[in-house]
Each structure stands twice: as C-alpha cells, then as structure tokens.
C-alpha cells in the first residue's frame, strides 16, 4: 500500500471534513399497535430501546477503528400517523414523547418518523398528527417530523399544502427553531437516513441500517487541482472523488449492520454541508468557476455536481437510496449564508437549483409576517418541480416572528445561522384557498 494513498485518506478526514454524516437505524413500528395510545406508546419505547441499544456504542467503536468520524447516530421509524390511526391530536403527544424518550435513552442525536403521508388525502391519523405538530415539535427535543403532500403518481394535495402553511406558522409562533424539525415533501423516499425527513417506509424490513455520507470539502479540494481545465475534467474529478467517499460509507454501513446483527439497507450518496468553512457545497460550486453561489451558471454547475456525485457513488456501493445528491440548505452552509447575506442568492435562484439537486428549499429564514398562504404557495411550487420531474423535493422553511429581511437568526450547532431572506409580497391566497387536488402529470400513467 502506498504511503501517499494513506496520507490522502488521513488528509480527507483531518483537513477536508470527510465524515459519515449519519448511521440511521430504521425500525418498523407496525407490530407495536395496541388497543390504546398509552400501551402503543410504551410498545414503541420498548421496541426502539431494544433494537437500538447498541447503535451508538457500535458506531463509536467503528469511528475509533477506522479513524473516520460518524457525526450523527439516528433512528427512523414507521410514519406515526399509520401507527396512531385512531388517536386524537392530544393523544398523539404520547407517541411523540415515546419517540423522544427512547431516543434519549439510547443516546442518538435525532429520531425521525413523526410523519404523515397525505399525497392523496387525509386519514384520521394524518390529520391528528398534523394538528399535534406545534405542540409535539416544541415539547420534545429530538423528534423530527415530515409530511408528504404530493407524488408523481398521486398528484399534489392542495388541501394538505394549505394546512401545512398554517401549521408552519403555528409552529413559528411557538418557537423560532422548531420548524427546522419539519420537512414537507413531494415524492418522499422510504429509506432516507437524513434529517429532518427520515422515516422508515412501510415496505422496508423490520430493522435496517442506512448510511449517509458527506464530504463537500473533499470534492472542493479535488476540483482545486484541476483549475482552468475543461468542464468534463471537473465532472470526472467529482465522480472519482465521490467514489472514494461512498466506499467509506459502504464499508462503515455494512460493518455496522454486521455488528448490530441487522440488515444493511442503502448508502445515501449525498454531499451534505455543515456550517464549518471548507465543508460547503456553495464553495464547491464557486470552485467550479462562479464568483459567488447565486450567480448565473449556478444551476448548471449544481446539475453537473449532483449528477457526477451519483455516477461516482453508484459504482461504489451495493445499494443506493435515500435522497442521493447535493444538499443546498442555506443556514447549514457557510458559502450559502455569505451569498444570501450579500443578496446574491435569492429564493428564486434557490428554487431553480432545487430542480437539479436532491432536495429543496431547505433551512431558509423568512420574515415572521409572511402570510401562511405564501408559505403554502412556496410548498406548492416545490411540489410541482418534484412531481413533474419525478424527483424528491422538500421545503423546510423558517418564518421567524419579529425578524425582518437582513436580520440574522441562529439555530445552533449543525443547523447554523441564516439571514432572513425576502419573499415576494404579492398574495397567493386565492390560489391556495381554492383547495382540492392538482392531478398527477400525464407522464405518470405508465401502466
């Protein structure tokens, strides 16, 4: 083995922030359903604390042996709306607290799956869960929530979008930061290891280990070495780098699954930034040749980056899943924060970028006096991009009461800080208040 190769690996970890962003254990709760909510909640606590009891210690031992940080250990569970079909909004809190308590007992960073799938309509559990969100997300610490409001097959549930706009505002009135724990999806995936949108889909096995990799810093450093060369050289460089990053995820995931005695699911081939300098997707785009992210050309550069990451990663792992691609959260990415502060990166540009990357409008602070129908309309636009283009899109938006354009909001830790960004002030209310259902696109009828 060559010393150069060894040092390159060590440098990736030490200087370029290569890490396994998350090992996420997916746990099915379908067998926990009992007659009353309290018993079910107890069953949920018991199942999670049994299966995940060694998750953190196994992950920490792997970190040690390989010298690779595993930043987060997480759990995802079956969407709670499916488990709590007959609960009232108040009774939903039992489930939220059972998840929170279990997560704290086993020592994980987050637990996802306080979720509902309403792309085609609401069942009783779905409505109760959504109505409980303002309390559930402010009375628990580690519980993460998501709602799927559209899919290419089902179309877009505009009633759900209207309700989620109102819910986001209701949460904002209770807390500046709790909306960071809520993602509104179109085409949500069932094996996503990343938060806040992780849940354990109904078609998944009983227990599974999924892994999300990260490493925008490694990609940036690799592109620095091909300055001035043609764009296909950049694509090839990203591909080869993504291969290496993903190999580490594949190895760590399969080893963790083996040691925990559960099935290994997927590697999520993602470039997920953190607020640390040098761990930024925006800086990668700038290295490709943009003066600042948000400049014309940003969408094209992101398309190349997202695609090359997938091409490199697919060959490096046995099974690929999750969201897979580049993440563009504003508050969690130093370069995005700079560009948003400078007014170079706008909401309109971010929306365009979401049509070519793996997520959506993510971790964006907006003024606290934004109407709920405007937030709903943002969700509708993102859903339209996802549904029409057969991809996942998401909205995680943070209206902040008492803050206006230009103010900074601090979310703490990996969630970072964000400048309050301007929103178009013309009303979308009449559109959202129509309610109903946007039909599925014609190209979804493939049978």
């Amino acid at each position, binding site marked *: 083995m060559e010393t150069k190769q060894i*040092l390159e690996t060590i440098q990736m970890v030490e200087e370029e922030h290569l890490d396994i962003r998350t090992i996420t254990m997916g746990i099915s709760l379908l067998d926990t359903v009992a007659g009353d909510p309290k018993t079910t909640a107890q069953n949920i606590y018991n199942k999670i604390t049994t299966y995940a009891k060694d998750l953190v210690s196994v992950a920490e*031992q792997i970190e040690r042996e390989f010298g690779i940080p595993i930043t987060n250990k997480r759990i995802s569970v079956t969407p709670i709306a499916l488990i709590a079909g007959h609960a009232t909004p108040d009774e939903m809190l039992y489930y939220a607290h059972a998840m929170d308590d279990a997560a704290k007992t086993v020592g994980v960073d987050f637990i996802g799956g306080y979720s509902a799938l309403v792309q085609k309509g609401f069942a009783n559990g779905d409505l109760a869960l959504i109505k409980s969100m303002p309390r559930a997300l402010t009375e628990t610490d580690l519980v993460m929530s998501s709602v799927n409001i559209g899919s290419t097959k089902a179309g877009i549930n505009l009633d759900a979008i209207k309700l989620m706009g109102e819910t986001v505002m209701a949460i904002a009135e209770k807390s500046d930061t709790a909306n960071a724990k809520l993602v509104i999806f179109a085409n949500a995936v069932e094996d996503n290891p990343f938060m806040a949108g992780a849940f354990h889909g109904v078609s998944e096995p009983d227990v599974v280990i999924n892994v999300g990799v990260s490493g925008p810093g490694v990609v940036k450093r690799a592109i620095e070495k091909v300055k001035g060369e043609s764009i296909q050289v950049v694509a090839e460089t990203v591909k080869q780098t993504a291969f290496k990053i993903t190999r580490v995820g594949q*190895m760590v995931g399969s080893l963790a699954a083996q040691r925990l005695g559960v099935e290994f699911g997927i590697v999520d081939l993602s470039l997920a930034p953190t607020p640390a300098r040098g761990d930024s997707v925006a800086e990668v785009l700038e290295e490709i040749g943009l003066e600042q992210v948000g400049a014309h050309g940003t969408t094209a550069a992101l398309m190349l980056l997202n695609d090359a990451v997938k091409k490199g990663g697919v060959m490096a792992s046995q099974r690929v899943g999750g969201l897979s691609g580049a993440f563009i959260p504003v508050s969690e990415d130093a370069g995005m924060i700079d560009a948003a502060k400078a007014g170079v990166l706008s909401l309109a540009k971010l929306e365009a970028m979401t049509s070519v990357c793996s997520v959506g409008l993510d971790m964006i602070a907006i003024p606290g006096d934004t109407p709920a129908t405007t937030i709903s309309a943002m969700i509708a636009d993102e859903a339209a991009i996802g549904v029409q283009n057969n991809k996942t899109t998401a909205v995680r938006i943070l209206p902040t009461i008492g803050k206006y354009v230009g103010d900074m909001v601090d979310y703490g830790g990996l969630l970072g800080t964000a400048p309050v960004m301007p929103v178009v002030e013309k009303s979308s209310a009449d559109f959202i208040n129509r309610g109903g259902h946007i039909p599925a696109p014609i190209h979804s009828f493939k049978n």
Partner: protein
Amino acid sequence: MSKAVVTVVGQDKPGIIAAVAGNLSKHHINILDVSQTIMQNIFTMSMLVNLETLDEQFNALQDELNQLGAELGVTIHTQREEIFETMSRVSTQDQLF
C-alpha cells in the same frame, strides 16, 4: 480484525521509529511493512502491523500510541487497514469482511 496501519507524521527527530517500534514490540505486534520518508521537512512513516492477537485490545493500543505521539510531538494514527483498501478499490464488502 487482522491488520492495522500506524501512521506517524510530524517534525523529524532522533528516536521516533525506535519509540513506535518499541511500543509495538511490547504488545507483541508484528510489523509487516514499513515505509518512511521526509516530505517537505516533515517526517512521515506508515507501518502495516498484524493485529491478529490484539483484537480485544485495539482501543488500548490506540490510546497508548496517541499518548506516545503527544510525548514525541508527532501525530500518530492507528486505523484498521480496510479503510485505505476500500477507498480505491471496486469490490463487494463480502470479500472484505
């Protein structure tokens, strides 16, 4: 677990190799391969060592070498070999574990 790579990086001075090798010898760890060079005045050494008898004590060895590194003023990494192999090879994990 079978093999690990011990990497030493830092300011060159007499006795680094002796100290690291001495520590490994104390643990009855066999050194399979050594590569050492000075890169831009920085001492760089990587050792491939056999851990077959040391499965349980990996953590203890790592702690001890970290401490030795601090005493010598160098950085010592002790990592399982697979991470370096895996990164640049196309193979299924079944072959590795």
